């Protein structure tokens, strides 16, 4: 599904190397988690994969289903099936949430040469999906993320994921700013989307999200590299001992 090889990335505007050779493969149907201390490069990885400005790939590759991601525009990556759930979802005053989602769904369909979704079909689907995430009609009407609480913003990300039905989902610290109940709701939303044909990359600081979204593989990232890979037990080890042990063990 997602294949990252020897990925080296620096900041465009300063001579600072952030990723120093990341190798990672996420298979269809699997959930991979990346954990790591602040500044290890986790969020940078998610931004580079989704195509945000400000980063320069100096070496390596990233492909989605064999297609070169790094060569695509941001919107092409999305249409190819990549989805990033933002750590800080952006507020867009003046654009209604519903309008935004319908524009996005139909833009992706159009880009893939599929037929656009009718308003009636779209309404039916979004109502059902929104209900599962406890998103009410009022939230759908409001401008995108404007006046949403932290939990509402994250649920809105998962709603977008559910509507866009991507092949590869990257969740960037989706647990940040969530209380236990909100985290459970978000995790249920994600679990409902787990599917044989879909891969997940869950980026998080803490093990607690992984209690709800059970990963198949856990990677530890530090200093721009993946330094250790293991099963779910690796997350528990981090929870108990912190990153220092693993980092010194690898060093």
């Amino acid at each position, binding site marked *: 599904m997602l294949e990252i090889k020897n990925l080296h990335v620096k900041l465009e505007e300063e001579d600072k190397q952030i990723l120093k050779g990341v190798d990672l493969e996420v298979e269809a149907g699997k959930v991979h988690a990346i954990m790591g201390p602040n500044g290890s490069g986790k969020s940078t990885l998610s931004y580079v994969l*989704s*195509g*945000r*400005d400000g980063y320069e790939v100096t070496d390596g590759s990233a492909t989605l289903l064999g297609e070169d991601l790094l060569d695509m*525009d*941001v*919107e092409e*990556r*999305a*249409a190819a099936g990549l989805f*990033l759930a*933002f750590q800080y*979802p*952006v507020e*867009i*005053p*003046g*654009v209604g949430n519903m*309008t*935004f989602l319908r*524009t*996005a*769904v139909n*833009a*992706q369909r159009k*880009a893939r040469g599929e037929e656009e979704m009718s308003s009636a079909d779209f309404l039916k689907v979004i109502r059902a999906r929104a209900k599962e995430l406890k998103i009410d009609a009022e939230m759908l009407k409001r*401008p*995108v993320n404007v006046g949403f609480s932290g939990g509402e913003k994250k649920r809105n990300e998962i709603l*977008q994921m559910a509507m*866009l039905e991507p092949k590869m989902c990257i969740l960037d610290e989706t647990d940040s700013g969530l209380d236990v109940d909100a985290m459970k709701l978000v995790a249920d939303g994600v679990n409902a989307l787990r599917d044989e044909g879909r891969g997940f990359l869950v980026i998080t600081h803490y093990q607690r999200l992984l209690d709800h979204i059970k990963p198949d593989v856990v990677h530890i990232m530090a200093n721009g590299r993946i330094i250790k890979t293991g099963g779910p037990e690796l997350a528990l080890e981090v929870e108990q001992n912190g990153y220092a042990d693993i980092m010194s063990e690898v060093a």
Partner: protein
Amino acid sequence: MALPQAKQDVTEARIAALSLPEGGWAEPARREALARVRAMGLPNARDEYWKFTRPDTLVSAEAPAARVLETGEAPLFDSRDRLKLVFVDGVFSAEESDDLSLEGVTIDRLAEAKDIHWAKELYGTLEARGQEPVARPLAALNTAFATDGLLIHVTGKPSKPISLIYRHVSDSSDAILHHVIKVDAGAEATILENGPAAARFNKCMEVDLAAGARLHHVRAQGRDHERRAATHVFARLEKESVFKSFTLSVNGAMTRNEVVVEFTGDDGVAHVAGACMGDGDFHHDDTVFVTHDAVNCESRQVFKKVLRNGATGVFQGKILVKPDAQKTDGYQISQSLLLDEDSQFLAKPELEIYADDVACSHGSTSGAIDEDGLFYLRARGVPRGTAEDLLTIAFIAEAVQEVDDESLQEDLVERVAGWLARRRG
């Protein structure tokens, strides 16, 4: 005080190119207005309120030519049920207009109105009041020389909007129109205006709102690229009356829209808003003056300008709160979205407050498209062009939402979307 010679020469040259309609009830008001024009002189670049906008082409004896644009597109508001009143190059066309009868309103042509008329009390009166403390010579010129216009007396609640349609057919047309609108106590109407009107258009609209009266004014200035316009709205609001005016302007080489609002009765509400879309050789100026001279009135000024390819936008907005106008709620915002680095926005927000128990706020900003918003939309698969358009429409939304009728909002937004789409090819 004598006018500088140069100013006097320009003023006399303009006057000499016009002829003052004689006879009838309006003649005394016209002569008084002419005296005001001579006393003030037509504007030049040295005048305080003409520092950002060059008045030359608005005051010249001859109107600069402006090519008529054939868009092939149905005019705005075309599909609505409305009373159609059509002007062709500034001349009322009875042939193309609906019958002037509609329940709840009486309408007469300025050029034909009978000798004694309710409008006699108003014609030029609100314009004259609006000359203090800032001179508006082009409005006085209009009162003196207007050749046509409508006198609209709203006595009830007409069932449909009164729609003024301005067609531009001659490259050299130079039109001066003057409308007077009187809304009786408790009466309510919607006035729509659209179309480019003429190569050069000087329009004045005096609006008198009695207690509890309501007037909605929605205007779209047409797409012709080379047209020039100087327009004035003078509104006087009695107790508990409501006036809402919104203007969408796209294209046009030179547009100066002045709105002068005066609260004379308590608890009034006036919202003046505008959105403009400018490309290249485009200059658009909104000059607004709101005077609070009554208690507990609410005024809002919301202006948004989208500028690209070297276009210029100007905003000069003032809130004057007189000593007894306690509990005034005044708000003013002017913002520009600069789609490139060649365009410019010049803003002069002013507050002058003499009462002590008031809430007035104002703000003015200039900026580019929000990069974070753009990335977010694109990351969801929305192509860059569509995403930029969405964000641009979102930018003007606060102004468009000042229009109460949602279906009118949709019509206006659709035009803006069309304007943006044409620029993406």
